């Protein structure tokens, strides 16, 4: 099939960018979206043009590196799917496809479709961990965790940090990302000890990074490749409110 692409090209952090048109034919429906871009890049190389830069790594939906806006949607038209798991059978011959980077003030664009998501790392650094140094751990079965609790913690911990939640949020809020981590850790008995400090620090960091407010439109949970529930945002708010009231 043949597609008409409009791709965001930008030189670096400070330069502006614009949408550039490309025609790509010879696309097979079995290709993944990224393989389609590989194909285009291969042709650009032969013409001596700079390739379209995009982040990608595992190409099996788990590393969280890939992520772009495809036809105005985070990770493209499917829900619960990363860009690398999107295949060309979701498009029709002759379609026009708009490809842009994830946009948010906290995700500066580096070049073309590559963005800097280190703001997520900073949120985790602020408190998204359990303070257990190597050597301190007690015997693992001495901490009993109900089956359902472990499963619920897993649901939250499944976040791959791709940033689709921020990209699709009209407010560019990182509430789903931050709340998934808070929920994961507070659900577990090991993580409860530091929960008040953690939630305050992580939310302050989230603000400092320049993310917007969550207004509960719930677009994030629709586009999340791991289908993380926006109920976690409720839990984060609960933990925050609790910390506000009870913390000394």
């Amino acid at each position, binding site marked *: 099939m043949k597609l008409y692409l*409009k791709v*965001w090209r930008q030189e670096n952090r400070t330069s502006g960018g614009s*949408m550039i048109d490309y025609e790509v034919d010879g696309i097979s429906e079995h290709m993944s979206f990224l393989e389609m871009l590989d194909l285009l890049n291969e042709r650009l190389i032969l013409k001596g043009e700079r390739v379209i830069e995009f982040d990608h790594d595992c190409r099996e939906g788990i590393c969280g590196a890939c992520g772009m*806006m495809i*036809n*105005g*949607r*985070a990770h493209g038209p499917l*829900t619960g799917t990363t860009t690398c798991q999107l295949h060309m059978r979701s498009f029709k011959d002759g379609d026009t496809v*708009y490809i*842009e980077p994830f*946009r*948010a*003030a*906290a*995700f*500066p*664009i580096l070049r073309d479709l590559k963005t800097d998501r280190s703001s997520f790392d900073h949120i985790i650094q602020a408190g998204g961990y359990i303070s257990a140094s190597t050597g301190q751990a007690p015997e693992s079965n001495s901490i009993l965790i109900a089956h359902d609790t472990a499963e619920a913690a897993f649901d939250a911990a499944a976040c791959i940090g791709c940033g689709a939640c921020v990209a*699709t949020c*009209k*407010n*560019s*809020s990182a509430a789903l990302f931050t709340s998934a981590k808070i929920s994961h850790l507070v659900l577990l008995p090991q993580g409860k000890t530091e929960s008040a400090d953690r939630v305050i620090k992580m*939310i*302050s960091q*989230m*603000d400092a990074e*320049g*993310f*917007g*407010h*969550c*207004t*509960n*439109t*719930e*677009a994030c949970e*629709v*586009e999340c490749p791991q289908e993380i529930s926006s*109920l*976690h*945002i*409720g*839990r984060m*708010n*609960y*933990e*925050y*409110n*609790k910390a506000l009231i009870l913390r000394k």
Partner: protein
Amino acid sequence: MKQTTLIYKLIMAATGLFLCFFLVIHLLGNLQLLLPESEAREQFNWYSHLLSGNIIIKIISYVLYLSLIGHAVYSLLITLKNKKANGTKYVYDKRAKVSNWNSRNMGILGTIILIFLIIHFKDYWYVYKFGNLPLDAKGNKDLYAIVISSFQQGWYVLIYEISFLALGFHLLHGFFSATRTLGLYHPKYAKAVRIFGWIYSVVITFGFMQIPIYIYFNLHS
């Protein structure tokens, strides 16, 4: 402590929920307009008088004004911060497909409600407080007469109906959003509260909407 995004949100939730509570009181008062005409006038005027005398009611009314102003001011602050957080604009944006339009347009809905409130305050609150109103048989200011006469005009009814619809959609998202901001996360109860929110919004909206229509078609000053 530094005001975080969540504190802004808490203020929005608290003021919003208080306004939700007030709407119930207001609706109960307005429903008296639906009584048989002979009873309605005195009943409604008595109720209006009640709401302007009592010290407790006074305090509540100040909380109400503060809530209205706070809700509006903080929504503006939040919107500004969100605009800043957005960075550059998407060239092609279909994000609207994955969320409800009212949840995305609370600002617009809120602005419609704000404009409505200005009209509403000017026509009733201001007139009642500062205007010269005739008295009814019991000696209360005859607000009833003004209400009935204003809803004889079709365009006035239309303004009210549109505003109530805006209010309805605002509540539909606002009530749920406020409970989430307060920290409701339990899957079962969050769902129950969400259903309650829908019922509440529908009842309030249609409750208010029926009154101008009833007056327009059934009562003449």
